[in-house]
């Protein structure tokens, strides 16, 4: 097991810069998820850690040792690929043993580890099949098995669940989480699926355009997104964003939003300015709240455990409200919509998070 340090890491293809000056410390035994939209550089970063891509700038060290010039095979890590990359001409058993044989592990040890992995992943009955005779989920297990027999310091996962159907994905997600609980090895996991990120990670790195937008625990990211991008990226259904205007007034700030009454909050550090107000659909309520406004229901999406309401304010802006009440709503109904002040997130015109100065004094 080992921690990992990335110092000023950059990646360029000719003039094209994929990753710029990235600093990141990964703790020993951590489950770190790299998440971001496609093209954000997350896979490239993982491949640089794996040794499959050159590092243009900076250093990557694993367990305190700089590995920039070490080939992939010498980095004591293993990787699970999106396409699984099982060797098509080898049986499952050979797929598992192939790497160990290359590393000159003794035959009895190879057998022991392969049997152990097969038992953990419940693929014992598949050992003599070829990969093309396996289902997607089985291939996935074999791919994971191939990486655990190596007993590496570090596991890398490159969107391992994205080729599975929804049901299997949920199942494998749970299995991966329990595998992590059992092995406790450092894992780095790339995904574009925020649910995977939220459910499995010790910490999450949100990447965009080759830069870290935010690093933190799933709770951090959900409750205190550091910028508009993270606020919009994490959370489903997507957070509501409202254009607002802040005016400073004797020790407090008055916020005005079109379609809602003005309301006062503790002083914002930046003074008078335009800002973006974010509120999660689950924080909006029909009927009550610290601040309430009038709207009309435009669309009702009944999901069983909750109902998603699309509610248009008088300004025309549509807010998404997640309602778990029993009330039945109809399109066109006028409703009162409200939120509580502590549930609001404020972002300045550059998209960075701002906090009211005295949080405790705002509740009335």
């Amino acid at each position, binding site marked *: 097991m080992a921690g990992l340090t990335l110092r000023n890491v950059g990646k360029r293809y000719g003039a094209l810069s994929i990753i710029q000056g990235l600093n990141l410390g990964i703790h020993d035994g951590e489950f770190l998820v790299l998440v971001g939209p496609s093209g954000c550089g997350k896979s490239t970063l993982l491949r640089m850690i*794996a*040794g*499959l891509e050159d590092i243009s700038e900076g250093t990557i060290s694993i367990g305190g040792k700089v590995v920039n010039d070490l*080939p*992939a*095979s010498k980095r004591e*890590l*293993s*990787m699970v*690929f*999106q*396409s699984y*990359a*099982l*060797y*098509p*001409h080898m049986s499952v058993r050979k797929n598992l043993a*192939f*790497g160990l044989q*290359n*590393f000159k592990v003794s035959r009895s040890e190879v057998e022991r580890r392969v049997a152990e992995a097969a038992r953990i992943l419940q693929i014992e009955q598949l050992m003599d099949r070829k990969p093309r005779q396996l289902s997607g989920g089985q291939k996935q297990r074999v791919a994971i098995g*191939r990486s655990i027999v*190596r007993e590496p310091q570090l596991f890398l996962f490159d969107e391992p669940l994205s080729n599975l159907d929804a049901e299997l994905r949920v199942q494998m997600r749970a299995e991966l989480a329990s595998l992590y609980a059992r092995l406790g090895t450092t894992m780095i996991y790339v995904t574009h699926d925020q649910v995977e990120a939220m459910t499995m990670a010790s910490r999450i790195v949100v990447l965009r355009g080759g830069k870290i937008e935010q690093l933190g625990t799933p709770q951090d990211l959900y409750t205190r997104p550091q910028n508009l991008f993270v606020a919009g990226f994490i959370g489903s259904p997507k957070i509501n964003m409202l254009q607002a205007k802040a005016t400073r007034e004797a020790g407090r700030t008055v916020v005005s939003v079109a379609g809602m009454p003005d309301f006062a909050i503790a002083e914002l550090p930046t003074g008078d300015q335009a800002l973006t107000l974010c509120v999660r659909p689950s924080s909006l309520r029909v009927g009550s709240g610290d601040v309430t406004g009038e709207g009309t229901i435009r669309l009702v999406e009944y999901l069983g455990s909750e109902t998603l309401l699309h509610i248009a304010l008088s300004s025309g802006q549509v807010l998404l409200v997640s309602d778990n009440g029993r009330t039945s709503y109809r399109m066109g109904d006028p409703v009162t919509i409200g939120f509580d002040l502590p549930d609001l997130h404020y972002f300045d015109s550059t998209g960075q998070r701002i906090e009211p100065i005295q949080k405790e004094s705002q509740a009335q």
Partner: protein
Amino acid sequence: MKTSATDLELAIQMDEAARVAHELRLKRDRQERNGRILKHIFLIIVSCVMLYPLFWLLASSFKPENEIFGSLTLWPSEFQFENYTKGWYALPMSFTVFYVNSAIVTGLSVIGNLVSCSFAAYAFARLNFTGRSFFFALMMMTLMIPYHVVLIPQYVQFLNLGWVDTYLPLVVPRFLASDAFFIFLMVQFFRQLPRELDEAAMIDGCSPFKIYWAIILPLSLPAMGTAAIFSLIWVWEDFLAPLIYLNDIKSYTVPLALRLFLDQEGQSAYGQMFAMSVLSLVPVVIFFVLFQKLIVRGIATSGMK
């Protein structure tokens, strides 16, 4: 709900439409079947015309000398196996020598082609290196260079090395990947294999050579088979290079030996010449019949030859 006359009418109309559609389909099926039969007849005729010369050659090789010309029939009045037994020894050396020579040259050449071309193809298709696209472009250019252009300097070169009248000028170039067509064929195939396999193997501790040997080659057996068969057939049939480099009849390959029959023309040994011609085609035809699928797929993937 109202069940009315319009509903009923609609139902009748739909029924009628279905009937017409069914009839049209029957008619089209009938037309298509007739078309298919016509096509088959035509194709069978073309096939016969295509194959007639080959069968004529085969038949003539069994015919008595006076029956070869002046008759179109493919059935000899009596089978003259003598053409084969005599033909085999008709030249100053027996055909055993020529076949052994051809087999040596062909065998070594095929091995050389497979090894050297798959090496180069692996580098071009799977490894990243400085100058890759430059050398790849050069390789593609060598595809079009006519052999006649390099022939004279090569001949001088080999003459100075003392290689003329040995098999070295025929075999050594093949160990140096001189036939770029096979590199191209293999590159096309190697490129289709998923890149992640190499990467997984790298992480599994494989050197580039181990990846080539344990991953790429076993997965490329069809391409290697195609290359092997093409190279076998072409080397077997090769005429120009042996013509230039082999002077001593003891080292002649089969095509050179066949040409000797022509030089003896007038001695009317047509039956024997045809018999030996048939024999020279036998290995090619056998390989074609056995590996027809590989050959067809090879042409489709490479888009050449």
